[in-house]
């Protein structure tokens, strides 16, 4: 944590670093110290944004990638959480499925991506599929291991009070999994975006991944940078949003007072 008295200084420092990068790139490219093939100045990138904006492709590309990421994150998280919570309740099924799930989890996304394209086509559904696939494991594994290592005295205490199976599930098992759900969301949010973009890289007609790949193929360096910057800003915003969920999901760890 930064100390309170340091805070203005830290912000000033960050702004200075940002300014140096922006001005450095601008001047460097303008006066030929940095090659236009490898670098772009902020003004060139802004120009690329205007072009992409006016022909409508920027909003479309960004919108598609954001949609794929958000849907992949939501569906993958829900699926991972649901199965991660329920599977340990069914001991037999859990022992049967565990090795299969572990093998599936070991396959790198990049090699599974073409399969999803084959199954679901070139459009948005295949990207969502890839995203769901990796987010599922990011959520399933921490939730599943936490449910397996559940504190049995808590369950015993509730059982003695006469709690039913479903009461134990909702009052002990679900809340005790929430810290892992939070962990799963943090890891999953990054992976959801990676899944969507990898899908777009493998085969697509639109999306930020497509825009980057196309710009790279046509040596359109400013548009390439525009795509990367847009992805970076979206990733940062997503990660901040997930961080803000912490005090909601695991409220008891974030505060002594309610």
């Amino acid at each position: 944590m930064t100390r309170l008295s340091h805070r203005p200084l830290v912000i000033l420092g960050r702004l200075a670093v940002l300014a140096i990068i922006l001005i450095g790139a601008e001047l460097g490219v303008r006066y030929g110290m940095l090659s236009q093939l490898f670098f772009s100045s902020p003004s060139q990138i802004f120009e690329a944004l205007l072009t992409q904006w006016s022909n409508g492709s920027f909003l479309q590309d960004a919108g598609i990638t954001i949609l794929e990421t958000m849907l992949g994150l939501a569906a993958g998280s829900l699926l991972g959480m649901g199965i991660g919570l329920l599977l340990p309740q069914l001991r037999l099924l859990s022992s049967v499925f565990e090795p299969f799930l572990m093998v599936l989890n070991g396959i790198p996304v990049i090699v599974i991506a073409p399969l999803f394209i084959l199954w679901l086509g070139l459009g948005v559904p295949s990207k969502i599929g890839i995203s769901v696939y990796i987010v599922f494991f990011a959520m399933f594994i921490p939730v599943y291991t936490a449910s397996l290592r559940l504190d049995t005295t808590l369950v015993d205490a509730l059982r003695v009070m006469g709690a039913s199976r479903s009461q134990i599930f909702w009052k002990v098992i679900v809340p005790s999994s929430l810290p892992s759900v939070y962990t799963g969301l943090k890891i999953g949010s990054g992976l959801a975006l990676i899944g969507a973009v990898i899908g777009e890289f493998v085969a697509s007609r639109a999306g930020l991944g497509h825009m980057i790949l196309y710009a790279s193929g046509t040596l359109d360096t400013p548009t390439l940078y525009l795509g990367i910057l847009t992805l970076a800003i979206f990733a940062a915003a997503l990660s901040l949003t997930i961080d803000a969920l912490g005090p909601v999901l695991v409220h008891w760890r974030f505060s002594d007072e309610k």
Partner: protein
Amino acid sequence: MLEFRNISFSFPGRRGPVEVLRDVSFTCAEDEIVAVIGPSGCGKSTLLSLAIGLRKPTAGEVLLDGRPVKGADRRLGMLFQQTTLLPWRSVLENIELGLEIRGELKAQRRKRALALMQQYGLAGFERKYPHALSGGMQKRAALAQTLAIEPTVLLLDEPFAALDAQTRVVIENDVVKICRAGKRTMVIVTHDIAEAISMADRVVVLSRRPATVKQIYQIPLSRKAANVADVPSMQEFTYFFKSIWDALDISVTGMSAAA
């Protein structure tokens, strides 16, 4: 009446079963407080887990009013040795838990929980989470949680070990009063000989593992005294203390042999 009848119990171990309890028998009548005392690791907590039906005895049975206990009997209340407060619930919500499980209305259970918090010196901590409480306060909150459902048979596993001397006397008194007033049955596991003599009508001394009943003492002091704090100054106290001490066989050599 709670009756332990020829209870034996073994845990399944990697190298064959581990025998913990061997032919343990004693009863605890209505309106009676029985203290169970024995060396650490001898099987006291295990004995209570058999009484509430969390485990099944290998041999023998636990009877409540003549019938074998099954899991989750509404008449039973248990205070576990380990903390069982749910970390994600405020202290107030934790104390309400038992009533909530029984489907009691929110207003009613809240009223009851608040009264208990007042009584156990937890006022002002309603909205705190358990981790923000001291060890002694956590124990009191857990006790309040157990008492909230007004069980007729109370099983307490080392309930007062974490409390300071003054609070301890107050709560010991309180618990004795609750037991006597409500015609309840109570089994307290403790390491503290003085506490056992001060609170209980009978003290069951268990041997080292596998635990057998070494000795049962009828103690008339608790009922005679107006306050548990008065018991240690009563005449017969020293006699009982010495007898139980001897029965426990807490010799230095014994301790190192066990370790």
